[in-house]
């Protein structure tokens, strides 16, 4: 994504280390970087999180407001998740419309949360077919060090978990705020995305920027609280064998459950 200029020396160093079972920053193959979650980042939003995964940093703000339902889904609220790379996150990021990589990022993060049915959208209806509650989770990347898929996904999930939704009633076809009726956003499960890179025959979890630049292929697997797989995205110009994919599935469930414990504390802490 960033196509940072990584010199050939670093590439051969990463490959040499992997052959010895080591990574360039000393982590085990199935070890993520340190995850720091601060959920009181933007008090004016309905929920928010500032998340650091290693040196990648994302701020996610959730805005909740009345909206028109989609024509074929009048009995469900709306959920939209976006992601944007801010130009201050890396020297190579340019202003202007997002490129294919950033659009993929936003869609994969959205899909992981949407397909897990994390938010019970049926509870976010103000009046069927007329007015529903819209939940917008906007991710902005402020610092880049690889693996934005997981950094954004954790930020969005933590922000949603910390969100309170106001209540509206329909009066004369206009959604009207009901004071003092805030409630937690109805959450059914906690999705966790785990992104793995393939370098040669090695599978590594949570690639940092150096690893991201040289990896042959990647896969992002989102699992829910029941340990089911709910979204996948393969990327990069190499393939995975069936054995590798099954191994990645196992890793994503194991690593995902560790991350989920951290995300649960967001809820517990409120």
């Amino acid at each position, binding site marked *: 994504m960033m196509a940072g200029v990584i010199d050939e020396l670093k590439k051969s160093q990463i490959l040499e280390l992997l052959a010895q079972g080591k990574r360039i920053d000393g982590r085990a193959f199935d070890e993520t970087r340190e995850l720091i979650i601060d959920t009181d980042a933007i008090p004016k939003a309905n929920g928010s999180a500032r998340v650091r995964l290693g040196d990648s940093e994302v701020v996610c*703000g959730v805005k909740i407001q009345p909206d028109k339902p989609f024509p074929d889904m009048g009995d469900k609220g709306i959920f939209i998740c976006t992601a944007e790379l801010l130009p*201050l*996150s890396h020297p190579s990021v340019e202003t202007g419309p997002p490129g294919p990589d950033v659009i993929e990022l936003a869609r994969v993060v959205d899909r992981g949360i949407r397909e897990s049915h994390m938010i019970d959208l049926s509870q976010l209806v103000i009046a069927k077919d007329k007015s529903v509650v819209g939940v917008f989770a906007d991710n902005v990347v402020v610092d880049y060090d690889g693996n934005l898929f997981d950094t954004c996904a954790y930020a969005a999930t933590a922000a949603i978990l910390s969100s309170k939704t106001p209540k509206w009633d329909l009066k004369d076809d206009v959604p009207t705020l009901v004071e003092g009726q805030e409630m937690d956003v109805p959450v059914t499960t906690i999705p966790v995305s785990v992104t793995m890179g393939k370098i040669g025959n090695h599978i590594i979890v949570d690639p940092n920027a150096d690893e991201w630049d040289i990896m042959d292929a990647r896969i992002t697997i989102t699992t829910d609280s029941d340990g089911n797989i709910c979204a996948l995205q393969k990327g990069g110009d190499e393939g995975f064998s069936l054995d590798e994919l099954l191994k990645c599935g196992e890793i994503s469930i194991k690593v995902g459950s560790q991350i989920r414990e951290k995300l649960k504390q967001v809820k517990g802490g409120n």
Partner: protein
Amino acid sequence: MGGRESELVLLDENGIRCDGRKIDEPRKIMIRAGGLKNADGSAYIEFGDNKILVGVFGPRDVHPKHMSNTDTGILRVRYHMEPFSVTERKNPAPSRREIEISKVIKEALEPAVMLEKFPRTAVDVFIEVLQADGGTRCAALSAASVALADAGIPMRDMVAACAAGKVADTIILDVNNEEDQAGQADMPIGYMPNLEKITLLQLDGVLTPEEYKKCVETGINGCKIVYDLQKKALQEKYFGSGGDQ
């Protein structure tokens, strides 16, 4: 503008404002130099409930090339608000307001930055408003100066910024969101404290000539308060403490 009717008491009989401040008292200000890993220089400011992050890159090659100038470096500024920074979710695309603010901030910084030392290059300033609460352009400009200094870019002076305004027929320092909405005038000021030059000045609202003078003077006093905090933020990063002053 123009003193809209409102329930809000902007100034009570004891001279206390709607958020508890005195007329010449700024909101709580916190400035931090640095913080971003990839940017050449960065700063974070909390100015009341405003939260703004600034990253600086450069001097670096200019893209597109035709923008480069063989006599001097160029300064580019982008002021951008996050969708979640305001009460109603904002469309992420830049608005006309953001484009204008980018321009006035750029022109406020230009006199301070010694761009002539870096011909054919660009210095890029990226301002990201994470949370907005009135007075973002002043807070953003103040943070941008710190980020430029943090990037090691030679400057003639810092640019400090603060607004002054008029509520309930009284000149006040540092207009907050409510005062901006319901008050009579808002005048953002950017100021180079050592060169004693005003580099950003806007006004909407009505002032008498006497009030105009008072308003500028009040704003400059606010800028001096901000300037001390800018210096403190840089001292803290580079000398490991708040310094003596």
